[in-house]
């Protein structure tokens, strides 16, 4: 069984956000400061918080958008979605100018061209223990609110990462990243990264895997996804943050059909790689599974002692201990 742990570590480093992480932090801070500086929003008790994959530390290279959850803690039931978006638009336009601010269906997008990323600021009002965000306008062109709990997903992610460890360190987050990368390599568009992240969450929550390598966990989760994807394509994917609700997705029936086919192939390839005794053949299979990152770089490296075609490099005989010094042992100098 070739689990190639060192090379999985390298693969993970190749999909890490890198400099995007700093840029995301800076741009998020600027948008939050702009929202808090706006008097009308301050009166509504605005308290922005970072959400999304970046907040959950499961984002992979590249981070193109960052989500800011604009919690209006003192907003009451009279606040209309359109009014909330107007207030956000006014605040952000005042700080960033019309050129960089774009109104969207339920958020305001602020562009940070210097970082090649944007921040989506979503207004939210309290609803019991949860929050509501604007829903896309319906057929009557009337805006309404929809219940959500993105901060709970961040909490669940942290909890799961603490619960499942590999050599004492959280394994859930790295596996989500690997699954997101598999999705990127095998699925053209939909279902999206969040959908597969939630599937991974359920794979851990339902399957309770206990493995001793990244490779073992990845295979366990892909097996689960292979099995569950046809089911959730029909019934919807349970939202772990809101009982009885399912995750929204833009995936069409055709998208699901393609995804089921591709993930079946991916899961089979992963099983083959894990079962492989030869490091070099295994590495080649993991390389095919994880594809390339957004910069076109191959994610899974071939070990130094292997050739690119998956054969073993004949010059790389394993050093067993060390060569004997010409004088043998018992030397003094």
């Amino acid at each position, binding site marked *: 069984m070739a689990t190639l742990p*060192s*090379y999985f570590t390298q693969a993970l480093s190749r999909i890490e956000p890198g400099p995007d992480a700093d840029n995301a932090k800076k741009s998020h801070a600027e948008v939050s400061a702009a929202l808090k500086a706006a008097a009308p929003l301050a009166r509504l008790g605005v308290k922005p918080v970072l959400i999304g994959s970046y907040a959950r530390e499961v984002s992979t290279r590249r981070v193109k958008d960052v989500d800011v959850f604009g919690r209006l803690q003192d907003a009451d039931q009279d606040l209309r979605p359109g009014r909330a978006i107007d207030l956000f638009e006014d605040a952000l336009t005042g700080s960033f100018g019309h050129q960089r601010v774009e109104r969207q269906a339920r958020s305001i997008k602020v562009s940070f061209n210097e970082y090649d990323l944007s921040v989506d600021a979503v207004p939210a009002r309290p609803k019991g223990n949860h929050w509501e965000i604007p829903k896309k306008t319906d057929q009557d062109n009337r805006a309404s609110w929809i219940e959500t709990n993105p901060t709970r997903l961040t909490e669940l992610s942290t909890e799961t990462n603490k619960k499942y460890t*590999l*050599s004492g360190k959280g394994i859930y987050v790295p596996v989500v990243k690997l699954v997101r990368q598999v999705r990127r390599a095998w699925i053209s568009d939909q279902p999206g990264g969040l959908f597969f992240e939630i599937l991974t969450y359920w794979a851990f929550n339902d399957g309770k895997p206990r493995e001793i*390598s990244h490779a073992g966990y990845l295979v366990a989760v892909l097996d689960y996804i292979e099995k569950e994807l046809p089911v959730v394509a029909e019934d919807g994917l349970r939202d772990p943050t809101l009982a009885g609700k399912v995750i929204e997705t833009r995936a069409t029936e055709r998208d699901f059909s393609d995804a089921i086919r591709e993930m079946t192939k991916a899961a089979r390839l992963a099983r083959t790689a894990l079962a492989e005794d030869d490091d070099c053949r295994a590495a080649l299979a993991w390389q095919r599974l994880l594809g390339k990152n957004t910069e076109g770089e191959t994610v899974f490296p071939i*070990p130094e*002692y292997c050739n690119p075609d998956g054969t073993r490099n004949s010059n*790389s005989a394993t050093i067993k201990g060390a*060569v004997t010094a010409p004088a043998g042992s018992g030397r003094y100098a």
Partner: protein
Amino acid sequence: MSGAARAALAAARAALRRDLAARGFADDGEVLRGPVKWRTPEGPDATAVVDITVPDRYPFGPPVVRLTDTGVLLDVTFHRELDGALCLWDTDEPVPDGPWTDPDLLLRRIVGWLENTAVGWPGDEDCDLERYLPASGQPGIVLYDHDAIRPLQGYLRTQAMQNPGVVTVLASTWSPPTRPTGNRAAKGRKPAPSAPRHLAYAVDLGPRQFPVRDWDDIAAALGDHATELRRFINQGSVELLLLWYRRGQRKAVLAVAVQPGHPPVLKAREAADTSLAARTLRAGTSATDLARQQVAIIGCGAVGSYVADLLYREGVRHLNLIDGQLLRPGNVIRHLAPPRLAGLPKADAVKQVLLSYELGGDHIQAKQSKIETPGQALEILDSSDLVIDATADQRATAMLCWAATTTGRPMVTACVQREGGIARADRFPLRCEEGHLPPVPEAPYLALVRERGCGDAVSLTPPSAVMAAAELAVELARDELTLSRSLPATVLRVLCPQPDAPYDKLCMLAARTSTEFETTS
């Protein structure tokens, strides 16, 4: 690093990871974490959890192993690095075996470590307590004369030496003034006595069952004296602790730099014994026998000066150094004496160098003289246990060889030939059926070089050849002086292949008889 070398190293590391994973170790690519079953002294099995990392030194050094969970209550004492890593193999463990590359041997070693720790490392005599304290990072070393300091306890004066960071602890005690007691003390209200600066404090901690890890360990051993010592440390007076301790039958000293603090901060310093015993420990196994012998060295030039030096270092204390010349600056490049001694008689220059070692018990005579008569040769042989001729003076050598053969007194004559291509030493007198190797024919033509002005022709022999000849002479001398008598009458080393056999290859020639010899390539 070449691709093949990098690939081989990566393959070795990957192999260990794979083997440990097959034994149940989880691996996140950096740390391998897994169970190690071991038996407690009470009998039941325990399961420890260890973290193993594969450092860059692998496979030329062992993996780094740290305990995550011992499985049972365990007092971890010795054989552990400051960062918590287990010391599983001594650094002098034979590398070719690389036992740590075998996962089963590695795990067994960890089991052994746990089981030994549980029973307090019986029979363990490693005196390396400095490894359990952070290093001071100061340059230099702490020097102490064990014989002079050992009987002393308490406060000792120190002296900073010329080299940066080198401190010598002196056999000079300081006692704190006694504080007034009773009514006088109350009336006077004098401040606590202060101490001079740069003091050391020496104390015997006795046998150690666990390392010194912090001030509390020292305070516990000092008892009532701890408070006073702590005060002087925090006053900045005491900067150094010399802690004598014992592990099994072995005795050692731990030098600790102390800095004011609550509690005082302890850092390990390297320390070394300057006693004569310590400084002559490495002199070889014959030192005691050689100390009683009287050796005359005729000729204290290039070869002779190194013969004198080697014999002195090996234990000969009674030396009679004889040479008629002065040390010229041009001699120094292949002479024992440093340039500052140029102008002295060569014998005196050599004597000064030897005395600078301060090895004591010296009876070194230096004489600016030559062997010019057979009578002188007979006299010097008669008054010495051994004479070494390093004159390169044909007449002197002839007289000494004749005198040795005639009187049966031992003599060794050493030289370099063929401009350093051959080093040779011959011993007299010959023993039963012995013979010397035949003379080495002179090279057909050698360019003569002279210093500016008049004087002897200068040999172009390099310094390394000079030392090789000195080494051969000392080997024959030791063989004679210790009565081993296992070496032949001639030993000859070809340092640079010559055109003519048998000197045409690098080898050692040893005479068996006058017509036979052994060659060792």
